[in-house]
């Protein structure tokens, strides 16, 4: 028993180390004065400051894009999921599959199609909303499916009918009954949408312009053209930006789900 337990513990620690050591090393590299001389060269925040001065635009652009993407997918996804949930059937299945199609197509192909279609519209091509379109196409199915799953689990029809017998018109029914009961799905979907949008590289790499670099695009750029310390510091900044955001959203989502249990 003791041996089995010890083995289990060793295996767990090894797996953790396998995941954590590169992370720690990368983070350390970002705060080391000279990576090739190692930690003995001293710790510094110089690289982090440099990343901030070079790429702070990317950070705000990525956060802005992710939030815009969240708003757009919510505005499209919730009513769409509601419409699909109200009319289950062959047609709805086809539409659901069709909306999910961008998941199966490589982001590069999707970006190419967008460029072919809209590339000549200069104002749009160089605007951040062009990248937003790509992100929405890619993340919408996650929002749609998350909301649809929640709506399919409740008896939407009789809830709406009971609201109607109490004097609620169609709009009130949507606001008072459909939206609050879909909320756990919206939050779960929103978490996925924001995460995917911030980390999206494939599509964005094709769609970005030199003035519109998102976080991952900037990361690739710093890996390719800056010294290793800056690229590592960039990773550190990425972590510091993303982790609290994700934790906050996770917390909000689990809180909302507890409300309904």
């Amino acid at each position: 028993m003791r041996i089995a337990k010890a083995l289990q513990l060793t295996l767990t620690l090894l797996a953790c180390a396998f995941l954590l050591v590169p992370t720690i090393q990368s983070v350390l590299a970002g705060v080391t004065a000279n990576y090739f001389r190692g930690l003995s060269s001293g710790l510094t925040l110089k690289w982090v400051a440099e990343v901030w001065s070079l790429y702070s635009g990317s950070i705000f652009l990525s956060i802005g894009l992710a939030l815009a993407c969240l708003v757009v997918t919510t505005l499209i996804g919730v009513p769409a999921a509601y419409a699909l949930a109200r009319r289950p059937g062959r047609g709805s299945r086809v539409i659901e599959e069709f909306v999910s199609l961008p998941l199966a197509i490589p982001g590069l192909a999707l970006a190419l199609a967008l460029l072919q279609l809209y590339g000549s519209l200069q104002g749009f091509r160089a605007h951040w909303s062009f990248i937003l379109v790509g992100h929405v196409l890619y993340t919408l199915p996650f929002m749609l499916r998350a909301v649809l799953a929640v709506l399919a689990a409740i008896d939407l029809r009789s809830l709406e009918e009971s609201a109607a017998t109490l004097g609620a018109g169609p709009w009130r029914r949507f606001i008072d009954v459909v939206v609050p009961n879909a909320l756990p799905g919206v939050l779960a979907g929103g978490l996925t949408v924001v995460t995917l949008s911030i980390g999206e590289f494939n599509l964005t790499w094709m769609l970005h312009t030199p003035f519109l670099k998102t976080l991952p695009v900037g990361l690739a750029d710093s890996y390719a053209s800056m010294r290793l310390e800056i690229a590592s510091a960039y990773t550190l900044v990425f972590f510091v930006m993303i982790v609290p955001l994700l934790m906050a959203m996770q917390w909000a989502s689990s809180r909302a789900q507890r409300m309904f249990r």
Partner: protein
Amino acid sequence: MTLTLSKVAKTFPDGTRALNPTSLEIAEGEILSLLGPSGCGKTTLLRIIAGLESADAGGTLSFNGEDVTRLPVERRKIGMVFQNYALFPNMSVRGNIGYGLKMAGLPRAAIAARVAEVVALCRLEPYADRAITALSGGQRQRVALARAVAPRPRVLLLDEPLSALDAALRTDLRDELAELLRAVGTTAVFVTHDQDEAMAIADRVAVMSMGNMLQIGAPEALYRRPADAFVARFVGNAMPLGGRIEGDRLLIDGAVLPLAQPAHGTTAWVRGEDIALDDAGPLPATVDAVTFLGTHYRIKLTTTGPAPLFSLHHGHSAPRPGDTVRLSIPPHAILTLPAAA
């Protein structure tokens, strides 16, 4: 409020006739039960009254003389209790009960006062601030009723309100519901497939089958004077006796049972409580099975008739399976009915 239905019918888009033209008047404060097996059109009729289904062209529905046939459900001012209650999981008990009042645009203080009143009426005080998910089935049923009556609806519609509860609870809540409906005093239409429920709660019962309203009347009237074999069978489980009626006598394979009055050409039916084991009785039968039910025995008997007869026997002892017995049926207890359509 008086509820008047005139030639109300429903044909579904696929051509199924759910309800044949039905006319009906429900008086102010009356509790009417729509009773029938599943698929008889009772729920469709209820949903038409609610405005959740539209009636076929030609039918009209009026509340106190006001034509509401085209009025959408949210403006009919009805209250409805759904089979699964359909309580809003995103609101507390109080929030659910107050929702209709909020939709009516009442000021906050008036809503709070009316909610408190209804909560007291339905004895929901200990649960008023709970979440819906923290309630038992019986409590949910009371919240559903409270929510429906809070805005003082013109008519209260109940769709199998007890069917989601387990059997033991159902009998208790049946009497409680009857009491509450009387206390509320609103005109009510109540759908059920359970004859005991219909009889216990309703002033009048309408028996439905295959989209038709077969008979409507007080529970006693339906029980004692059913209009046809279906009603007799559905209300009080009448059993066919078979044989042949000639004048005021029922002839079953040589046995002769007297009838209360001549009923030539009709069929004879009887209820379990009217079949007596009587050594001097005219009708021979074989005992198939005996079930002891505490207050009485339920004895399954085979005669020459079309179906086995079940006698409810109130004795201290019962015959054994395989015994041959003789039965007597008092003349007034033999129901003479036209054959079911």
